[in-house]
């Protein structure tokens, strides 16, 4: 996809400004400041992706000539030429028109742009210096997602945006806390389950209701029956009571003896009765006399002691047992006293027996005291340990402070790049010097005749003198011949010298020229070295070793802030750690003091002696507990002994009281036996007397009967027979009436039988009781019937109720809704997982490719100074490796180098985007301004290379105001198209 051109209707300073015919490859748009380069970049972004909102902080570029801002951009894409038109401040103003005139959708435009959005386009494809200068613009999620998930056809939202939407949906459905759809539905289900359980339980009551109903019916029936019986009984006794006076009358009438048939008969009968009376009176007198004879006033006193004697006799075995127990308890008391004495001795003089007796430590005090001891001991150990930690932390802090004090910055800081240059120049100087030395070695020494060596000429002179000497000694013809030969040899030697010197002079002239040139270069190098060395703060005459030392120093110095920073950070941590340890120690001491105070409080509350320590408290309390129990045991034994002594003594005293009369019976047992015999005799006598009195009473009754009989006979003699008959009839009529009126009374015989055993008081009582029972039974019957009605109603309600069905239906509905919501959540979770995993894989697999591209570009731009760009293992940032294998973070690079790195990264990202999607045009706004000439040249070459890296060539638009940049770009990309912008270009261009 390429930008074929644009038509700025109005935007900033531009007015009806058109450029067309743009193609692939590099286009340089050059113009001075204020010629509108940034405006044009903003226009391109605005038309393609939308103009910034008026509320935005972005420049608005309102048209200088007024009117709406906007225009058209012409794209050359897979669908052919299309026009994108958009206007600022108008919603839905986007219009995309194909070359045939038909309109396309916004989605089509998005697809042609490879799914790139405004953020991606701004940060990667159309950037100014401002965007270039930070890595952050490349690390926003939208950029990462779009790069690594490039070319999402249809241009849906970013993958991360989709995940965010899914997560929002999931949160709305389910929140760990707070309201959510699933939570509400789950609560509804829970409520309905509870309601259904209750409803089912109600329904399951049905068989019970049936049983209850039957039972209540039986109960009502039984109560009715019993009620009837009670009423019958009441009626029965009522009838008896009603008949009773008549019955008595009748009985009197019926039982009245027949009157004696004659006066004689009456007299005889009365005489007989008088005889009987006399006999009875005599008998009665005799009996009374016998009874009186048996009366003894002392017997009562004897009999009064009967109970006492029996009691004493009964207590005899107990007395024996008590005596035995007394001996045992005395032994126990002695043993306890001995043990108490031993324990008290162990406890010391401050613990007396009464104090121990009054002091009863609860059983858990020992555990509490031991716990106090353990806790305080632990606190103490904790204090020791924390103190040691604090001391160690202080020592570490001191060590770091010393190390930091030694970490002082070097007095002269030299720029590393200058030193590297010096290093190179020194190396060059050394090489030059070596070359010059070689030349000098080859040339003759100044003032010396060229020819054989001096030692050869000397040798010739010595030889001449030797020959002259030898010739004088010989003085012969042969000496003349020899001299000739010698002179000839000398002549030849001289000729050789002359020739050799001439040749050497010719060669020496060429070498001198080379030497002079070398020396000139060396002088230039030395001058440059002196100048740069002085600038780098090096002393005159510095050597390569000095430079390397300074370079090492510089490198070290570059690292020094890092080291210092690290040390400072570590020291800060150490101080914090020391403070924390100190705080911990102080906290431990405070805790110990608090615990100690707690112990003292506990001890005081427990009223324990001040001498008690947590360590000995357990033992002391155990002894105190033992002592207390022993004292209590001893006291108990003493009490038992006292009680037994008292009981034994009391019995013995009682016994002795019986024994006193005998005088010879020390413990009174024999006297007791004698008394018991006396009592038995008294009992017999008294019994006899009572029998006689009873017999006298019977005789009195018989005597009275006889007298009554006599009176009756006398009365009967005067009776009216007619009245008796009336009484009988009245009773029988009333009886018949009752029997007829009251059912259940039985027959006449039963009534007669009941009346004959007559006891009206009992009848009255029973009649009253029967009436009460009937009343009670009536209430019971009515209650049973009432409850029966309620149970029947409840049963009918249950039979007619749809309660269970309704709530189960609601429950099923709620469960269905919950299942749907849960499924929706699960699907969203799976979808989010799918997108996230795919995104992670994309980032993992595609990022290395981007970094590889960026590494190569960065290495070329920096001429091998930096070789590799990689992901920082410790974070989301990047690191770069220099030619010496050292790693640098972007913020540690110089400004220029950092911008070169970010530019290289954009080349990598754009390449990666194009690899999986659409090769979009890249628009740069004067991004080389901070580069030195060499890097600027190398970058221009890289831009050219980037433009040529695709087939057909990638479109690169470069905006610049620097002629030098134009020159560099055109040099790197011969044939680059150039568009000149002038100040106020818009006005001119219209």
């Amino acid at each position, binding site marked *: 996809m390429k930008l074929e051109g644009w038509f700025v209707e109005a935007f900033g300073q531009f007015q009806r400004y058109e450029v067309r015919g743009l193609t692939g490859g590099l286009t340089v748009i050059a113009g001075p400041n204020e010629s509108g380069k940034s405006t044009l970049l903003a226009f391109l972004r605005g038309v393609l992706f*939308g103009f910034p909102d008026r509320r935005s902080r972005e420049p608005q570029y309102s048209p200088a000539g007024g009117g709406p801002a906007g225009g058209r951009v012409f794209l050359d894409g897979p669908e052919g030429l299309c026009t994108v038109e958009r206007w600022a401040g108008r919603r*839905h103003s*986007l219009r995309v028109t194909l070359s045939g005139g038909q309109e396309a959708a*916004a*989605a089509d*435009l*998005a697809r042609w742009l490879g799914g790139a959005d405004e953020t991606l386009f701004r940060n990667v494809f159309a950037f100014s210096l401002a965007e270039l200068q930070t890595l952050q613009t490349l690390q926003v999620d939208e950029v990462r997602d779009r790069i*690594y998930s490039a*070319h*999402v*056809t*249809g*241009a*849906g*939202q970013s993958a991360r945006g*989709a995940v965010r939407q*899914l997560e929002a*949906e999931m949160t709305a459905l*389910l929140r*760990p806390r707070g309201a959510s759809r*699933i*939570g509400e539905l*789950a609560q509804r*289900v*829970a409520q309905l389950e509870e309601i259904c359980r209750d409803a*089912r339980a109600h*329904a*399951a009551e*049905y*068989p019970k209701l*049936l049983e209850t109903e039957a039972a209540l019916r039986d109960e009502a029936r039984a109560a009715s029956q019993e009620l009837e019986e009670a009423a019958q009984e009441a009626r029965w006794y009522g009838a008896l009571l009603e008949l009773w006076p008549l019955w008595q009358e009748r009985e009197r009438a019926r039982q009245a003896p027949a009157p004696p048939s004659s006066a004689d008969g009456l007299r005889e009968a009365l005489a007989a009765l008088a005889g009987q009376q006399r006999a009875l009176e005599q008998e009665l007198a005799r009996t009374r006399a016998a009874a009186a004879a048996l009366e003894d006033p002392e017997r009562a006193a004897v009999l009064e002691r009967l109970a006492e004697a029996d009691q004493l006799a009964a207590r005899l075995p107990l007395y024996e047992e008590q005596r035995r127990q007394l001996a045992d308890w005395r032994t126990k008391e002695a043993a306890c006293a001995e043990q108490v004495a031993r324990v008290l001795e162990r406890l010391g003089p401050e613990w007396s027996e009464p104090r121990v007796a009054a002091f009863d430590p609860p059983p858990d005090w020992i555990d509490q005291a031991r716990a106090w001891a353990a806790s305080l001991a632990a606190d103490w150990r904790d204090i020791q340990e924390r103190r040691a930690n604090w001391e160690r932390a202080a020592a570490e802090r001191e060590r770091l402070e010393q190390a930091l004090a030694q970490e002082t910055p070097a007095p002269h800081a030299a720029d590393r790049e200058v030193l590297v240059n010096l290093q190179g120049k020194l190396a060059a100087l050394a090489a030059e010097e070596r070359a010059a030395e070689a030349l000098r070695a080859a040339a003759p020494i100044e003032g010396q005749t060229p020819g054989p060596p001096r030692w050869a000429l000397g040798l010739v002179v010595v030889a001449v003198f030797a020959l002259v000497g030898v010739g004088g000694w010989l003085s012969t013809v042969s000496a003349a011949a020899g001299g000739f030969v010698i002179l000839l040899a000398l002549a030849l030697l001289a000729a050789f010298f002359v020739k050799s010197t001439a040749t050497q002079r010719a060669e020496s002239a060429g070498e001198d020229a080379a030497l002079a040139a070398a020396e000139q270069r060396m002088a230039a190098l030395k001058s440059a070295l002196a100048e740069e060395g002085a600038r780098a703060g090096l002393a005159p005459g510095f050597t390569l070793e000095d430079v390397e030392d300074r370079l090492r120093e510089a490198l070290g110095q570059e690292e020094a802030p890092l080291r210092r920073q690290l040390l400072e950070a570590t020291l800060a941590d150490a101080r914090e750690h020391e403070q924390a340890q100190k705080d911990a120690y102080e906290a431990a001491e405070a805790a110990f003091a608090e615990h100690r105070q707690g112990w003292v409080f506990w001890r005081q509350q427990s009223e324990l002696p001040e001498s008690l320590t947590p360590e000995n408290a357990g033992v002391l309390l155990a002894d105190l507990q033992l002592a207390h129990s022993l004292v209590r045991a001893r006291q108990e034994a003493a009490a038992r002994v006292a009680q037994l002594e008292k009981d034994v003594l009391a019995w013995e005293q009682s016994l002795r009281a019986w024994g006193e009369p005998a005088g010879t019976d020390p413990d009174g047992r024999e006297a007791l036996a004698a008394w018991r015999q006396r009592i038995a005799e008294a009992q017999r006598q008294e019994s006899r007397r009572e029998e006689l009195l009873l017999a006298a009473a019977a005789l009195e009754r018989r005597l009275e009967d006889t007298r009554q009989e006599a009176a009756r006979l006398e009365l009967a003699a005067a009776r009216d027979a007619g009245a008796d008959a009336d009484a009988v009839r009245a009773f029988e009529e009333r009886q018949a009436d009752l029997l007829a009126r009251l059912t259940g009374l039985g027959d006449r015989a039963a009534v007669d039988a009941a009346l004959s055993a007559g006891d009206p008081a009992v009848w009255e009582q029973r009649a009253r009781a029967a009436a009460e029972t009937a009343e009670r039974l009536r209430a019971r019957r009515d209650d049973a019937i009432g409850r029966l009605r309620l149970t029947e109603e409840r049963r009918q309600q249950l*039979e007619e109720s*749809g309660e*269970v*069905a*309704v709530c*189960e*239906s*609601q429950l*099923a*509905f709620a*469960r*269905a809704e*919950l*299942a*749907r919501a*849960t499924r929706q959540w*699960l*699907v*969203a*979770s*799976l*979808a989010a*997982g*799918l*997108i996230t995993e*795919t995104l992670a894989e*994309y980032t993992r697999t595609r990022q290395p490719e981007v970094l590889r591209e960026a590494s190569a570009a960065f290495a070329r731009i920096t001429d091998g100074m930096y070789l590799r760009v990689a992901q920082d293992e410790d974070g989301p940032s990047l690191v770069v490796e220099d030619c010496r294998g050292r790693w640098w973070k972007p913020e540690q690079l110089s400004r220029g180098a950092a911008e070169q790195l970010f530019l290289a990264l954009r080349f990598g990202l754009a390449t990666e985007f194009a690899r*999986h*999607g659409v090769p979009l045009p890249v628009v740069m706004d004067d991004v080389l301004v901070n580069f030195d000439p060499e890097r600027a040249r190398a970058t221009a070459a890289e831009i050219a290379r980037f433009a040529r890296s695709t087939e057909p060539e990638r479109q690169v638009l470069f905006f610049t105001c620097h002629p030098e940049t134009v020159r560099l770009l055109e040099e790197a990309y011969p044939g680059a198209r150039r568009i000149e912008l002038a100040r106020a270009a818009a006005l001119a261009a219209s």
Partner: protein
Amino acid sequence: MRFRFLHASDLHLDSPFEGIGGAPPDVAARLRDASLEALDRLTALALDRQVAFVLLAGDLYDGPERGLRAQLRFLRAVERLGGAGIPVFVVHGNHDPAGGWSACRALPPNLRIFPAGKVEAAPVERDGTRLATVYGISYAASAITENLALRFARAEGVPGLHIGLLHAAVGAQAEGNPYSPCTLADLAQAGMDYWALGHAHEYRVLSEAPWTVYPGTPQGRGARPGEWGAKGCVLAEATPERVESVEFTPLDSIRLVEAQVGIEGVQDVAGLSRRMLGEIRRLRETHEGLGLLVRVSLTGRGGVHRELQTPGRREDLLEDLRDQTAGSAPLIWVDDLVDDSRALLDRDAVARRGDFLSDLLRRSEDLAAEPGRLRERTAEAGLALSTSRYRAWLPDRSAWDPLALLREAERRALDLLEGDAAS
């Protein structure tokens, strides 16, 4: 002597519709009463067709609790049949095992409930002629892994039809199946002339020699596929020697139907609503006289799919459909609107694109190809549900097909990532 008998099963009396949500009270009441109405229809059919006897093959009630209303309604139905001299034979199934509480203190004389523990036989006679012997056994518990069919044996020399009444899963894998798993061969060897089975909710004739029949449930009552369509009982024509034919007779008063609506060519949501209503009208004509519980399923590809993805849009459409069909007589209730539609996007084309979405689809396909990993992945995705404080009330997700979930998730992801660009 010719006679006919009625065979039904899985009445699930007075039980709610499962998986149906959001119905207003009047609709809920109609749905709730549907199973009882089906029983009334069954009774009326038996009386009308003068059947010799009625066989009920288990799951009369939906749970061991046995709703009171259900029991009383059933007893009244049995009493009505008893009034016509029609005996009723019943076995209990997994949903209503023997031993549940009974609202009845004394069973009507024409009701014979076969006990659990052993197969018992009951004769059916008319005018001194033995028409049939019914053999049956009830479930003692809700899970019976024993093959109860093996306990049945034809009594030799006894005239009349021999009918096995059993609640069982025929043809199911025996291992772990808790519904008396058996095979057709197991049934055949018992020597019955007719197997009156229960358990499956769909009418199925498994065999004609011997007759082996599932009548299905008389009233569909849930969201599961087996509950949809016509539901009823079986009327069998027979002589004492053989069953001559069986006839499925619908008894349902509310029929669960699916309205499949394609979205192709639909311009907008209004158009889609019109199309859905048209389909519902067509279904009403097809199932004249019956109440309908309709689940609308959107299928196909179309531009309106995107619109359906707008949050709340599907719910709005569903509510609109319910409003449009409210007050219909007989009842029409649109239970759900299931969106199985797709965007215009061609999934296969996306898979070939080599971009993010194709990688996403590839990842999805990889998961689909490994059921074990897919199960794990689904479990991981649902971890927050498993650890939620509401977990006790959440549905059993193990019943959900992980593959279906994956496909839904895949569609959801595609829908989100394949959107219209903002203008």
